């Protein structure tokens, strides 16, 4: 049915109503400037866009669940394979997150001992999911 197909243009208003208005009136992007030079404006805009997106994600149902979990527990749950001190490498506009063991291995100095939690074999009924 025609009426159910559309509303195609309606979401465009999100960019005016829910994005720019929120950035300007909520996050003060226009009035509270950090300086007149371009680098300052770019830094302010980038951080604000990232903060805006983070807030948007936390306003989702899944985000609300995440928000109730403290960061250390979250890390234990989500990043077992990365260990407690993962390394973030940023090269040429791309980034990757590695465990220190993996990083040493890539650099040709494989660690003799790993502090990563021992993962059970896949065949084991106690395998972590």
């Amino acid at each position, binding site marked *: 049915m025609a009426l159910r197909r559309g509303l*195609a243009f309606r*979401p465009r208003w999100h960019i005016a109503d*829910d994005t720019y208005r929120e950035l300007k009136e909520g996050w003060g992007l226009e009035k509270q400037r950090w300086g007149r030079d371009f680098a300052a404006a770019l830094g302010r805009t980038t951080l604000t866009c990232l903060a805006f997106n983070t807030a948007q994600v936390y306003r989702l149902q899944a985000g609300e669940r995440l928000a109730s979990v403290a960061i250390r527990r979250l890390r234990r749950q989500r990043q077992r394979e990365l260990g407690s001190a993962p390394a973030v490498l940023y090269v040429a506009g791309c980034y990757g997150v590695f465990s220190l063991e993996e990083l040493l291995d890539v650099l040709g100095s494989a660690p003799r001992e790993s502090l990563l939690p021992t993962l059970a074999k896949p065949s084991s009924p106690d395998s972590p999911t």
Partner: protein
Amino acid sequence: MRGKVYAVDGSGLGDDFRLVALVCVSATRPIIVAWRLLSGQASEKGQEAAVTRQRVEQVLQVAGPQAISLLLADALYADGPRLAWLKYRQGIEALVSLPEDRLLYQDLQGLASGQLIEWTHHRYMRTIAGHKQVREVEVTAAGELTSWDGFTEKAARYGAPDASLWACLIRDVTTQEAAAEPPRALVSTRSFSDGFAARPRVSPALAHRG
């Protein structure tokens, strides 16, 4: 990013800067996926359309060639070659406001005034700031339009010699004052069953055809 409907728009930040953002609008909440801060001459209104292509390419590069299915934009972005590039180079449909001074707009008005296309009447409820309002619009649409040379010529270069556009006129007839305004137009690389399906900002649950 699960949503595939994006909108692009720019907004001035004071007198010196302009922010152009490509926002995913079909997710539960809008997410800014790519942005660019413009300054100097590039920040003047009208110049921002030039950076749209780069932002789209950026998203496709990171999220894959199927990441965007429909791009929504205002009249500032109504650029024939760019619509052709989106559709035939990137596989992205576009739905854009059409300015009144465009030939395609006048063609559509000519078809409507010559009664070659039919106006349909729609009545629906909209909610503004918590208040419900009945709104009435008249809509007419036409497909297979080929009078936008910038679009058809570029599409032909991309291997689509028979490319055409769909467009509609939407007239607010809720009040006599509103009805006296020129109708608003939308143009798309994609076909819709009628103009009402592409209309801006109405509540689907409460819409009904009059």
